[in-house]
């Protein structure tokens, strides 16, 4: 029988990377139900928002903005544009992390089924395997989040609240790719330390319960105590949420912002804006939403700085993934 033996030991890394990414993709997407239910989570959150939270949050913002004496009130319709864009963008950002985490159950399955023994026994690098997992995760998460972003567009259009132009849409997808890469690098690192499906399920449960509040997806961070705002500043998802908010809110603010009196605008931005505040002074006092945060001891972190910080996080996670590659491809014999 005629068969060829490998001449050298070194394989072409890019080819292994490509094939492994493809393999991960095929294995994952074969299970259509899993894909469907992964996408259902943000959609259910959206439905809950429409049914219960929307009116609640509107009344709270209406009260804050329209209760100033001597200033004409803003109509609900306009407030709703900001409210909805604010919530949807936060949900998209949260989605990029939660979907990414769920997608990584492939890594855990490979560990549990012992499939990665196959990778470990072949002359390929663990780094390549690790980064193929990460890239696969990026692709799937991006794909599913893309679908969800389209759902948000449809919702905005249906509510007659679509103020985004072509550039905004482009920026939204750009930001989505940017924060998804960050999420993938983060969740792949997390999953390198998880060995069983049961553990991952608990992590997912904990994350889905807390993360939405911690990174400001469901509730304005400005409602948190100053110290807490500083703590969540170090969660990468906080910046991802703020960046996505910027992409969704930039045009509505430009177009509709002139209806607001400066005081109202500042309250609006404090509640449903996209800047983050890092408090340096007066940590123990609570935030007054009608006062400029700078006057309350805060430093304003604008989207460009958020982007730098996110880039830093992404690079850091990638480096840590490299260091943790042995854990990602850990083999244990049953």
């Amino acid at each position, binding site marked *: 029988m005629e068969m*060829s033996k490998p001449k050298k030991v070194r394989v072409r890394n890019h080819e292994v990377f490509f094939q492994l990414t493809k393999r991960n993709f095929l294995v994952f997407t074969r299970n259509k139900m899993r894909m469907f239910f992964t996408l259902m989570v943000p959609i259910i959150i959206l439905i809950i928002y429409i049914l219960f939270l929307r009116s609640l949050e509107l009344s709270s913002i209406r009260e804050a903005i329209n209760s100033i004496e001597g200033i004409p009130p803003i109509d609900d319709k306009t407030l709703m544009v900001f409210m909805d864009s604010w919530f949807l963008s936060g949900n998209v950002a949260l989605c990029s992390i939660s979907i990414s985490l769920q997608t990584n159950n492939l890594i855990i399955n490979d560990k549990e089924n012992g499939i990665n023994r196959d990778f470990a026994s072949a002359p390929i690098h663990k780094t390549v395997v690790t980064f193929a997992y990460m890239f696969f995760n990026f692709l799937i998460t991006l794909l599913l989040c893309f679908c969800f972003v389209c759902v948000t567009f449809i919702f905005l259009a249906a509510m007659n609240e679509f103020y985004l132009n072509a550039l905004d849409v482009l920026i939204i997808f750009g930001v989505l790719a940017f924060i998804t890469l960050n999420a993938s690098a983060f969740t792949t690192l997390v999953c390198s330390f998880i060995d069983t499906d049961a553990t991952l399920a608990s992590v997912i449960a904990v994350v889905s319960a807390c993360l939405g509040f911690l990174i400001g997806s469901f509730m304005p961070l400005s409602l948190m105590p100053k110290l807490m705002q500083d703590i969540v500043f170090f969660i990468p998802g906080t910046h991802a949420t703020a960046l996505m908010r910027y992409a969704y809110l930039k045009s509505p603010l430009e177009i509709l912002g002139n209806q607001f009196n400066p005081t109202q605008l500042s309250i609006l931005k404090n509640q449903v804006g996209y800047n983050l505040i890092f408090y340096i002074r007066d940590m123990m006092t609570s935030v007054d939403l009608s006062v400029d945060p700078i006057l309350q001891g805060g430093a304003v972190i604008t989207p460009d700085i958020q982007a730098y910080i996110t880039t830093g996080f992404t690079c850091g996670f990638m480096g840590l993934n490299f260091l943790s590659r042995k854990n990602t491809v850990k083999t244990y014999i049953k």
Partner: protein
Amino acid sequence: MPNSKYSVEVINLVKSYGSVKAVDNISFYVSKGALFAFLGVNGAGKSTTINIISTILKKDSGKVYVEGFDLDTDAQKIKNEIGIVFQNSVLDQQLTVLQNLTIRTTFYALTREQRKKNIQSIIELLDLKEILHKRIAQLSGGQKRRVDIARAMVHAPRLLILDEPTTGLDPKTRQAVWHLIDKIRRETGMTVFLTTHYLEEAEKASYVIVIDRGHIIEHGLPIDLKTRHSRDYIISYGKVSPTFEKKLKKNKVEFKYDTDRGGYLLYHTNKMKVTNILKKFEKEIKDFEVLKGTMDDAFINITGRKHDHGNE
């Protein structure tokens, strides 16, 4: 220094999991081109040894050479020379046979044409044409095992390691897997290193090592093991009879009552040939069978004796 006659050399290998000594200072050699069998009960340490040789498990101490390469310094080169069929399948259940094989070929430094050719050869050798586009999850146990073996061979390794290739298969499929292993050896000249629980399978090997609780307790050609540890014997069916036993003892015939089979097992010795026994006890032995010693007896003798020692 490694010896070029050997495909695998293991010297004083030790591996513990906590307080469990899975492999306790074993040494052995596998000649090139041999069909080498590692025989042992559950938990004997077979998979542990194999996983160390396959470079995926760290040893505690000892030396291992595979195809002349030192495991400590040339693990990457060893990976190129070995193909492993793990005890549990490592195929992607959701993908087709062809997809599984194609992905695995890229793990080795082969050109595109070589990969195609290798896959083609394997499809022919292992007769995979009909199931090529089926998903692994849809295959029968025997078909899966065939693909497992194919997967391990995509890079034409010089050493094929199979961890319990026939466990969990029905007797007919086990036969088929053995035919396959024979065919692979015939057509590729690969060295085959396999582990098994089944004695009759070890009989087909060119060399056998019996391992128990991390120790090598016996080794040799299958035929030698058989002659050393199993003897021809007679079963004399009937109830327990003290007078018969007394007479047997007087004539120095080795015996034992087997309650399962309901009769005395009378062992053949140099002094007492089977025919002599039959003649001498014509009156007592009414219903009997003469049985050839099997590898199973050898195994029970080897491991059983060892166990007794442990209990003393």
